[in-house]
């Protein structure tokens, strides 16, 4: 249980030229759970491996607690890690694999056994304790690897894609149990994942990375409601934020469709438009969850009409794809919405849900018609 | 240039020298006269002569006592023919067999494959005497066909085991995809399976060639002067009047050449990776 600080950490591979990790700065509080989120090759795993000590740091420093650990060997850093490839010891039973880390601490064997049983019960692998790793499924091996890391008393816990092989039903249950466990034991944890659903479920704060650069480090709520740039806006959320090209003209903000015609106007006040400057091209973002659809003719201030092109009913909600004068939009509605493909629906896009981004840099300009909050560290 | 890479360069040079030095010395020897070679202490400085190579090519072994006829060029030709055709026959037989072993799990399949491999372990002397008698009675003694056939004991197991491993690594899904595209099984075998197993086939071919080339005992017993390869032919250099080291060295240099050429030719196939990212993970 310690703080973890990365200060301007970079990784450059010899001869590659480009930076796998570019000047990443993050301060993680004691007991905080954070996620490193991004698509393949964004630098998240490299960053994790630098914290673990499996990769050397080209620039910057990493501190566990108050100690700079750049040149400390992995075994001396007091860090527990669960690997994406499990890395279990084949000749040892599952029970012995899990207990392995505790042997170093020389705890009494009765206590070790008790803790192994308790963590196995939490991760639903109790009946596998006497088996050997090669004989159990990938999802089971992954849970053994997790158990081995979580059982230890370490300063920081690093989990690399910890639940990628689990079947969906188990994932929901284990996510909740693991989160409960991490919070109860005040464990400082870094989770690496490419699945933003996983990151949002587990983490107090999420560090979104792309091409080695930290895009935004904020709470899930802030990432969804106040994304710092277009990349974060389009990566977070299922469905992710709707993004439309638009232009500020005549005191209004007009969203353009594929043919560059005006599809609809965004209900932001004229001060927003004038702050942008007449004729300025921008990107407008609206979260699907904030768009209100009304079936059955119920209209409260609706100004737009959408033609439904698809309706994915997912049991507890539905995701509706529709067109507003040539512009494709996705919205999330309750399970009872009647929206057959081809039908027309009134649509409300609330002004306070609109986000404005700069077309060239991708950075957020306006949130709630206020200047955007800058990158949170 | 930091300390680690200087150390690495020095180590590599030393290792390289250790392995390449005998080769280098043999090449040097091939340009020396016997007197220079036997001089004590040995010296790399001498006046080079082509006399050894001339002797080999012209077929005249010049010794201190007199001149002797040798047929080294014929031996070289024989080695090339025997090794090349053995490998070709092994590939024609072995590649489809390796595919069968890789793809079709049939009863006794594993036993069969191991039996075929075991031929490599067996001491050749075990079979040589009976084979000699059979060969003589069916007229295969001292023929190319006879030796090529026997060489299959050396080359075929190698091809089978190496290529089978590579076929096993080719995903069956890729083959199924090609067939669903409308291509026949045969077309799939030639256009998909073989190209993807090419590094293995190249490695097996090269290795088999080397082993066939180096074989001594089969050629010695089952062949005579007309099919003698260089391994047997080298005995001729041990004459009653002494050993002509210079000419042996030149003969050695000649004998390396075909294998070297083959290695350079197959090298780019060996380096090719398998699957090349067409399959996830």
């Amino acid at each position, binding site marked *: 249980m310690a703080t973890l600080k990365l200060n301007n950490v970079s990784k450059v591979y010899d001869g590659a030229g480009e930076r796998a990790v570019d000047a990443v700065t993050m301060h993680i509080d004691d007991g905080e759970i954070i996620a490193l989120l991004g698509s393949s090759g964004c630098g998240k795993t490299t960053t994790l491996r630098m914290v673990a000590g499996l990769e050397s740091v080209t620039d910057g420093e990493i501190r566990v607690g108050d100690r700079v650990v750049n040149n400390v060997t992995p075994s001396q850093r007091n860090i527990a890690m669960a690997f994406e490839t499990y890395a279990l010891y084949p000749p040892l039973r599952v029970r012995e694999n899990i207990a392995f880390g505790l042997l170093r601490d020389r705890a009494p064997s009765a206590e070790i056994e008790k803790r192994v049983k308790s963590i196995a019960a939490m991760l639903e692998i109790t009946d596998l304790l006497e088996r050997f790793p090669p004989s159990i499924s990938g999802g089971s091996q992954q849970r053994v690897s997790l158990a081995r890391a979580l059982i230890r008393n370490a300063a920081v816990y690093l989990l690399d894609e910890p639940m990628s092989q689990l079947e*969906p039903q188990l994932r929901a249950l284990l996510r909740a149990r693991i989160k409960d466990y991490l919070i109860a034991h005040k464990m400082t944890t870094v989770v690496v994942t490419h699945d933003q659903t996983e990151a949002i479920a587990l983490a*107090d704060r999420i560090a979104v990375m792309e091409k080695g650069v930290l895009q935004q480090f904020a709470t899930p709520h802030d990432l969804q409601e106040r994304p710092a740039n277009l990349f974060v806006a389009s990566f977070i959320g299922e469905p992710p934020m709707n993004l439309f090209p638009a232009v500020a003209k005549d005191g209004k903000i007009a969203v353009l469709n594929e043919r560059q015609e005006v599809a609809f106007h965004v209900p932001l006040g004229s001060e927003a438009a004038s702050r942008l400057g007449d004729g300025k091209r921008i990107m407008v973002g609206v979260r699907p969850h904030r768009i209100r659809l009304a079936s059955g003719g119920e209209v409260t201030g609706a100004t737009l009409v959408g033609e439904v092109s698809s309706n*994915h009913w997912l049991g507890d909600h539905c995701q509706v794809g529709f067109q507003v004068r040539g512009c494709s939009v996705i919205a*999330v509605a309750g399970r009872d919405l009647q929206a057959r493909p081809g039908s027309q629906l009134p649509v409300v896009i609330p002004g306070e849900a609109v986000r404005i981004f700069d077309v060239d840099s991708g950075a957020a300009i306006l949130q709630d018609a206020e200047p955007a909050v800058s990158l949170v560290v | 240039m930091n300390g680690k890479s200087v150390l690495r360069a020095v180590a590599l040079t030393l290792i390289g020298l250790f392995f390449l030095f005998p080769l280098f010395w043999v090449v040097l020897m091939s340009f020396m006269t016997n007197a220079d070679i036997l001089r004590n202490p040995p010296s790399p400085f001498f006046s080079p002569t082509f006399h050894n190579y001339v002797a080999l090519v012209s077929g005249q072994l010049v010794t201190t006592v007199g001149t002797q006829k040798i047929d080294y060029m014929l031996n070289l030709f024989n080695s090339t023919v025997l090794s090349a055709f053995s490998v070709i026959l092994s590939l024609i037989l072995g590649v489809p067999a390796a595919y069968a072993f890789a793809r079709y799990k049939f009863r006794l399949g594993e036993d069969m494959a191991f039996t075929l491999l075991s031929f490599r372990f067996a001491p050749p002397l075990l079979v040589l005497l009976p084979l000699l008698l059979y060969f003589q009675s069916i007229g295969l003694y001292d023929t190319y066909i006879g030796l090529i056939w026997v060489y299959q004991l050396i080359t075929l197991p190698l091809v089978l085991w190496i290529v089978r491993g590579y076929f096993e690594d080719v*995903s069956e899904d*890729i083959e199924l*995809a090609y067939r*669903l595209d409308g291509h026949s099984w045969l077309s799939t075998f030639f256009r998909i399976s073989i190209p993807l197993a090419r590094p293995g086939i190249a490695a097996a071919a090269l290795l088999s060639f080397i082993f066939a080339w180096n074989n001594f005992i089969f050629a010695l017993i089952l062949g005579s002067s007309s099919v003698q390869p260089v391994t047997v032919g080298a005995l001729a250099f041990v004459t009653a009047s002494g050993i002509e080291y210079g000419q042996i060295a030149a003969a050695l240099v000649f004998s390396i050449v075909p294998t070297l050429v083959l290695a350079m030719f197959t090298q780019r196939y060996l380096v090719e990776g398998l699957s090349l*990212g067409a399959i996830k993970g």
Partner: protein
Amino acid sequence: MAFLEITGLSKSFKQHEVIRDLSVAIEKGEFLVIFGPSGCGKTVLLRLIAGMMQPDAGDIVIDGRSVVDLNPENRDIGMAFQNYALYPHMTAYENIASPLRSRHVPEAEVGTRVHDTARMLRIDHVLDHLPKALSQGQKQRTALARSLVGRPSVVLLDDPLRNVDAKIRYEMRFELPRVLRRYEATVIYVTQDYKEAMALGDRVAVLVDGAFRQVAHPHEVYDAPGTTRIARLFGDPPINLVPVQPVTAAGGVEMNVAGGTVRLPADSAAVAGRDCTFGIRSEDIWVSLEPTEGLPVTLEAITPVNNRLVMLLRGDEGTELFASCPQGSALDHLRGRHKAWATMDLARAHFFDHGDGVRI
């Protein structure tokens, strides 16, 4: 007469019956999703339809013609694989052109058709790349293009989005139907992701342990699952299943659940006196931090999922339950354990027989 009919298909490996007497009829242009957990036999089923192996019994009829004795190359089937199965030594263009080459289609037409399909899947700018130079998403689209370009009668999609990053998988969920509709394809799509199944399928065939347990429209599979297994497979978090014994009591039917007693709706006579498994979905349980008439529980963990909060509750006697609610309530920023009260919407409850798991 259905376009693709599978009747009585069975296949065993070494005494182990992998699929057992499978039958289903698929209309022309229909998008059928075969959904099942790993090991249920769906890969074997697809391989049988494709012709990679022979069934022990049963028939496969496509457009009135039995194909079970035909080689794969003669079945007029297109297939996209989970691990792409692209030809590594050929460019993307050649990969996609392959089905056309086998039919000796003239070069000019090959060019047009390959480019059309590539443009629709937005990979026309990387056609000259080898597979190793393509990104995951591009490889998947190339595999899809190859399966569609020949306009086959039937398209088999073997969990094509499994190995693709979560974000691309989500985008393809909207793109795939659009692309497939353009080709008017009859599609069998195999997946382990229930959201994909519900979003994409005209019908969902749930395959468990080698047999179809329910073949129905997605709404029906979610709202009226045939067995406890099916109920658990559809829904995230999974449906809560608790063994109960409802009894007739004064004024109706009651049962004990999660440490408390609840009264069931008036029409629950059928379950009284039986050993049942009670099922309630997380979205049908309401949680309050203020005391209510509901069951007292401990709120152990909150995991936000998209726009909802998923809560892990533990009843006083130890039962774990999932509840979910939309974001934007007092529960939004809670962390750690809290005391709470849970109320269930029993009108939306499911009951299954405790012994065989079948719906009552």
